[in-house]
């Protein structure tokens, strides 16, 4: 009877590869369409492309004619590349998350006045789903929105709000924070719009007087900071994340 080889290889975090069912097998699945006719040549093209992407032993497991001259492929392959996980640094919003009631208590203890937050989905963006999830009474997925927070006056201006109008409103109500939601990102329309917002605020001399936050499915904190925002929130963000950041910032910046 041979000894059972039970040793499981240890992960080397300086050389990480995709994991299928065995460490370092590098297994990756891809799905894409090529503008080529369906057939063996097409599958070969998909394989060659996968190799160029750094996949060993590419395997076209499925292909299908989409229309004349277009073929869809599902491809598996083994990734040659590795990543050094130990040297990665990601910019994140660093704040202790407080729940809704803790936020209310924090306002009572540390701010001692009503906090005003205005928000909108700006520019041409017609999607309210993001700003509603954060601001509306009902919130999203069981997380109540800012309208339900005691001590916060949350003003949701809805969608397709020009940056100028949002800023005007912020001035009018003396807002502590402005929330900008961007859902449509086709052709990077959100970048131009977010940048324009910062420029307008600076021109008005307001940039330092408010906490400026953006959010959306394609927004990261890093991107937000690059564009001149105080924070950026991506998917899986709820009202408590935004509120915790804003309230902490108010205290840190002595805007109390």
């Amino acid at each position: 009877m041979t000894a059972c080889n039970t040793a499981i290889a240890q992960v080397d975090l300086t050389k990480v590869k995709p994991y299928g069912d065995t460490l370092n097998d590098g297994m990756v699945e891809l799905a894409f369409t090529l503008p080529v006719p369906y057939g063996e040549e097409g599958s070969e093209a998909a394989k060659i492309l996968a190799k160029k992407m750094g996949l060993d032993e590419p395997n076209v497991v499925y292909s299908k004619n989409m229309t004349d001259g277009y073929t869809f492929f599902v491809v598996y392959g083994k990734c040659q590349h590795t990543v050094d996980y130990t040297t990665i640094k990601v910019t994140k919003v660093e704040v202790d998350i407080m729940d809704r009631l803790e936020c209310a208590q924090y306002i009572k203890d540390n701010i001692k006045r009503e906090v005003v937050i205005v928000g909108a989905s700006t520019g041409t963006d017609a999607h309210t789903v993001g700003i509603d999830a954060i601001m509306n009474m009902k919130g999203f997925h069981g997380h109540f929105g800012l309208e339900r927070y005691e001590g916060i006056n949350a003003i949701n201006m809805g969608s397709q709000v020009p940056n100028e109008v949002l800023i005007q409103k912020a001035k009018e109500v003396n807002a502590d924070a402005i929330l900008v939601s961007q859902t449509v990102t086709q052709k990077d329309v959100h970048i131009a719009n977010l940048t324009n917002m910062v420029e307008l605020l600076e021109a008005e001399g307001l940039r330092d007087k408010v906490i400026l936050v953006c959010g959306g499915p394609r927004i990261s904190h890093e991107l937000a900071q690059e564009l001149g925002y105080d924070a950026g929130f991506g998917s899986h963000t709820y009202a408590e994340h935004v509120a915790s950041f804003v309230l902490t910032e108010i205290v840190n910046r002595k805007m109390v």
Partner: protein
Amino acid sequence: MKSKLNLDPKVIDSARSCAARIAESMQEFIDRHTTVSTERTILRLLGVDGIDEVETPLPNVVVDQIKDAGGLPRGVAYWMGNAMIQTGKSPQEIAEEMAAGNLDITKLPLASAKEAEEKIMPTVLDALKKIRQQTEKRNQYLETIGEGRKPYLYVIVATGNIYEDVVQAQAAARQGADIIAVIRTTAQSLLDYVPYGPTTEGFGGTYATQENFRIMRKALDEVGEEVGRYIRLCNYSSGMCMPEIAAMGALERLDVMLNDALYGILFRDINMQRTLVDQYFSRVIIGYCDIIFNSGEDNYLTTDDAYEAAHTVLASQFINEQFAVLANVKEEQMGLGHAFEMDPDIENGFLYELSQAIMAKEIFPNANLKYMPPTKFMTGNIFKGQIQDALFNLIAVWSGQSLQLLGMLTEAIHTPHMHDRYLSIENAQYIFNNARDIGSEVEFKEGGIIQERAQFVLAEADKLLHVIEEEGLFSTIEQGKFGGVKRPRDGGKGLEGVCVKDDEYFNPFIPLMLGGAK
């Protein structure tokens, strides 16, 4: 047919007659008013097209000049008819003269309204004939090459470039799609004019222009003949140019148009008086040319909770139905909207969705219901997304929906790629075929979850409708009872384009279209 949900016909009748009274009371308001977009629509139907040197569409040039001169309450049909008498020119020539600054249409000698109407009538009848020819052409196609089975597979294209849209639309038709909707570019709904000519740039969609309609219609006719199935074309008769786009759709043979009496008010912040007047003419046109309209109740569930707000969807469907009745729209043309938007974590959520979908079909049995896919709880996990869409498809075939807007596994990530559309069509075809007759096979437990859910939603909708009747539709919207969105009566965009008609006002198209003018 016996109700599987044990719905009380008395409650349905109560809700429906209540909605009818609400619509009728609004109709009195509508009949007293006209709008700049309604007037531009008349011009488009009279054949006025093209742009001036700064790219303002000629219908806008004409209406703006008349409005600035204070002549809008009389209506453009009068001014055009009068100008035809005084100048001997056609509406298009008159519009061109006005754009060139050579003619002040309100300063001509004045004929009587009767004379103006008589003068314009041949052009009106000619427009109606063109529209009827398009309707006949559709019927001819349906008789010769036929159509797909219901639920029709309905997909969107949204590249921003009409020529790229054609490639995607034809591919989708070959993959099995029955309806192609060309999504409009972001924010077109807020433009108070319709752009002109073919367009190749847009954000998240393609401009709705008459030339783009024509290009896509031709492409879909070609591919329809190739695959042996009539492919329907859908666009948006909504926003600030609601009736104008309906007229373009009638002239270019669109088959389906998104058109809702309340949507623009709630979700685009268009003034409610403006939208209600606009929707009437747009629906009269849609009714006349056999276009199926889609109402937008599904949107309530993206801003409000799909479980808690289900009755607002049903109440709004009743109202949209009754507005359509007043515009002489046939039941089969009513694509009343609803959606599969409950939080997937709700226990028995599938049962509630199924209950509500069957309820809609039982209450509006002859309507061609439009069923919208999950969007709010699509996460970017494309694998789970495909399952959510599968459940949605199962309910559609089970409950007998007509227009199935296919869910995309990549919803919430990007506008659909070519293979996303293929995967969603394959998903729907598999399920529709595999469960084709499930609806006629399965009955529900008396007093069970499914029956009680529908009974509850219907009762709540009936209650809400009675509240609306009591308080009036305008004030109900002001209070935020639909979609959780509040809109003031004099707020929003476009109110300056609404005016009260004078005694001599006439719109020659409305009576003829309502009478079905042969």
